[in-house]
């Protein structure tokens, strides 16, 4: 059952009020989030106020949109006016934005009820949500395992049904990988499809905000609301928002699916689950063929160079001068700036700033940054070629099942290698949707469906067709 439509019906039939709904969700979220570590702040008061407005509208007979009254969680790197936005970092512990991100304005206008700000890896740097400066996030399917990252709070919160949907951000897989690990649906839109205005940048040329929900249609409803041109974002594509609901449900007979072999190098159990899913697609009438993306092996280093280089510049503004916290024990401004950054940035953040600074330094630029840009061009060509033959590509999201908390955190290389299936998509800028495609040992396995730029509607439809052929999206973690 599509949650958003179900609630919408209940609201307009006055079976439940928006305030009652918000209270019910808030009560559950308070308890649940303390177990999963999904929230950095809970905005109960605002939620009730906003819900009252929806109830007044319903009472006055005003028509309300699908998202009106729907409880949502927003990743803590997306600016919310007057609500502390930390990016999971100590350096922004007290930072309250004076403006809303464009996506937040769009969701507020649609009547979405914000319940809180979702926990995350500090500045979105991480694949396990263990890099949050405040607390770690646990996977609702197994409390000893990570939910993925960096949008781990957003994904786990949806999986645990603390909210109906959430927003994450995806720079190298940060929406798709946690969606996969938590068994929910997450869309990384085409670069430029969703405004980045108000998203606190990690790597500007890769970042995209994306929706997460328990099922494809809910995810699509949110995508339709948040997508579209924004004059405040010069990299936003001059295109209208998606109208997925017009397309969803269409037949996929004859759909050409390419399966790039370079992506099938992980855990056998994961790969077997994927193979079963591909067989299902054949049953549904699609044509499934193996294909190749020959430059895949260069993607991961190129990603870490480009992302770190941009991060080293994007994160330069956090210096204690204008906002955020400051080390007051320093006499000189330069010392203050260094001490503040040293004290309040976490280890992973400092590591990536150093990698990025190094990669952009005189004498190294050509060898690292410029070369990474060339790899990016080659990767784009790989995909252009593949999309001449296929409508979509399907790959695993991660080479492994959700790993244990603490398992990879001390070994960066293993952690980074976990991003091998997702980073390329950001370098190329195409859309990718993550959906559950099976379970192994009680843990969800996700797959990603990739398409040409601006093919989100098609991806939602393909994902929806697959989803309706199984019950993976209906399963719930046993929350003890």
């Amino acid at each position, binding site marked *: 059952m599509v949650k958003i439509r179900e609630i919408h019906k209940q609201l307009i039939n006055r079976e439940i009020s928006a305030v009652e709904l918000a209270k019910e969700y808030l009560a559950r979220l308070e308890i649940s989030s303390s177990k999963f570590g999904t929230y950095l702040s809970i905005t109960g008061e605002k939620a009730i106020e906003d819900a009252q407005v929806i109830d007044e509208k319903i009472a006055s007979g005003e028509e309300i949109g699908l998202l009106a009254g729907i409880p949502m969680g927003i990743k803590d790197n997306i600016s919310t006016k007057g609500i502390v936005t930390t990016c999971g970092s100590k350096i*922004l512990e007290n930072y309250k934005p004076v403006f809303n991100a464009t996506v937040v304005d769009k969701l507020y206008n649609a009547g979405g009820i914000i319940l809180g700000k979702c926990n995350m890896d500090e500045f979105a740097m991480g694949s396990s949500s263990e890099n949050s400066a405040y607390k770690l996030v646990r996977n609702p399917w197994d409390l000893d395992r990570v939910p993925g990252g960096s949008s781990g709070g957003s994904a786990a919160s949806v999986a645990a049904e603390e909210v109906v949907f959430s927003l994450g951000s995806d720079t190298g897989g940060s929406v798709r990988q946690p969606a996969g690990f938590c068994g929910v649906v997450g869309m990384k839109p085409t670069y430029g499809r969703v405004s980045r205005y108000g*998203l606190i940048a990690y790597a500007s040329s890769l970042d995209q905000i994306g929706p997460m929900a328990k099922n494809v249609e809910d995810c699509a409803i949110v995508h339709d609301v948040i997508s579209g041109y924004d004059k405040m974002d010069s990299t936003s594509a001059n295109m209208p928002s998606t109208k997925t609901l017009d397309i969803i449900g269409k037949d996929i007979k004859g759909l050409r699916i390419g399966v790039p072999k370079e992506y099938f190098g992980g855990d056998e159990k994961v790969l077997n689950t994927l193979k079963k899913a591909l067989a299902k697609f054949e049953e549904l009438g699609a044509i499934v063929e193996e294909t190749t993306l020959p430059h895949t092996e260069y993607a991961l280093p190129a990603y870490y160079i480009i992302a770190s280089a941009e991060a080293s510049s994007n994160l330069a503004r956090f210096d204690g001068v204008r906002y955020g916290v400051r080390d007051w024990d320093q006499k000189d401004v330069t010392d203050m700036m260094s001490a503040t950054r040293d004290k309040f940035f976490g280890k992973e953040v400092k590591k990536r700033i150093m990698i990025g600074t190094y990669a952009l330094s005189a004498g190294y630029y050509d060898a690292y940054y410029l070369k990474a840009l060339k790899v990016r061009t080659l990767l784009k060509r790989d995909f252009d070629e593949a999309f001449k033959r296929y409508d979509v590509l399907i790959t695993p999201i991660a080479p492994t099942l959700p790993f244990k908390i603490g398992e990879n955190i001390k070994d960066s290389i293993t952690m980074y290698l976990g991003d091998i299936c997702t980073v390329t998509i950001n370098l190329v800028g195409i859309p990718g949707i993550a959906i559950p495609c099976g379970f192994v040992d009680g843990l969800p396995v996700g797959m990603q469906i990739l398409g040409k730029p601006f093919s989100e509607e098609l991806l939602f439809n393909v994902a929806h067709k697959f989803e309706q052929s199984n019950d993976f999206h209906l399963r719930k973690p046993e929350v003890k």
Partner: protein
Amino acid sequence: MNKYEVVIGLEVHVELKTATKIFCGCKTEFGGAPNTHVCPVCLGLPGVLPVVNEKVVEFGVRTGLAINAKVPNYSKFDRKNYYYPDLTKNFQTSQFDLPICEHGYLDIEVDGIVKRIGITRAHMEEDAGKLVHSGKTISSSDSSNVDYNRVGVPLLEIVSEPDIRSSEEAKEYVEVLKKILTYIDVSDCKMEEGSIRADANVSVRLVGAKEFGTRTETKNLNSLKALQKAIEYEVERQIEVIEDGGVIEQETRTWDDEKGITLSMRSKADAHDYRYFPEPDLPPIILTDEYIAGIKATLPELPESRKKRLMEVDDLSAYDANLVIAERFLADFYDEVRKNIDDPKLIVNYLMGDYYRELAAAGLDFKNSPVSTNAFIELLKLLQDKTISGKLAKDIIPVMIKEGKNPKVIVEEKGLVQISDTSAIEAIIIEVIEANPKAVEDYKSGKGNSIGFLVGQVMKASKGKANPGIVNELLKSKLDS
């Protein structure tokens, strides 16, 4: 003969006079209470994104075309990374390898010799904020405040080739540049408000040497005088170091206007590595040939070409032509008047003579004068048809400036019309001859200059209104008869 040759290259930062900042909608107005012309975007708050002000690009292209540069179809912004609290993002959005224009030049004239100075490039960038220290300098202050009003004001940095050979040439180069920039209306070029600032790269080498000497860069040159003095100081200092057997260090120096010296700021070893990389938040700037041609079509005639026209077509002297083209407003005024008055010399004489003098006396300049081109044309027409004399014009001009009145109206109101009626003048002459027998006698006895006295008396009796030419003629014939 001088043993050393001076080599200078200038980097001129020009504040573009757009209404709003380069990447947001904040006003660019000079002054204002600290941190009042700011918004989340120019404050670089987390999550904001820049949007390029189209006007800045247009002004960049205008400038490029006016300095004879090539304007490429593709250019982009880059980030220049360094930490300083006057920046809100700890990087400056600027242009690195693909600027808005490249390969231009300007012709300057020093001591009658015309010389071409190459311009390497001009690039767009955002200005930084202003630190306000509690003490005199940053190091001697207990605290500093920062005013971000200026952050994001659009700048164009115009970089010359090392083609300049003296402080006079440097000054002339900046003056010619200023004149062009004000003509094409992209900047006020007010050095005192900092809307144009220069950094000077200076080196010396033995005359005839092929390689350049090591250069120093002197910053903080906020007037033409400072520019000249700093260059002269730097040249002397460098020659002295070399003569004493020393070596010039490549370094950045700052000009201390009070002491009249340059001081070392940082050596090459401390030079920043700006880690430039393409600004990922801004797409590249793609300009079509049509766009560039469209801007070219709107460029006004530039000062050099006007000067040439005034000398060749209007037959003005180089001196007069230079006076007229000194300001775009004045040159346009001249051209407008010239369409109606076919006597260039008369126009210049009045424009730069009585009119200019009276404006100055009233504390005004050409631009804020209440006298319209039409009023000025009318004044010259009244002179040309001898309705008024030059003497009367002198009385009329201050009234035109003071009361903003049309000269014809003034003439009528004050009854200032010149008397050219011979019978009326004759009557006055007869009176004057009768009243001054001594002078008449003197004239007749050969003292020719006494006629001047008699003319003066006639003019006086007519209250200055008699046409002096006619007075002279009639008086002479009367006395000689």
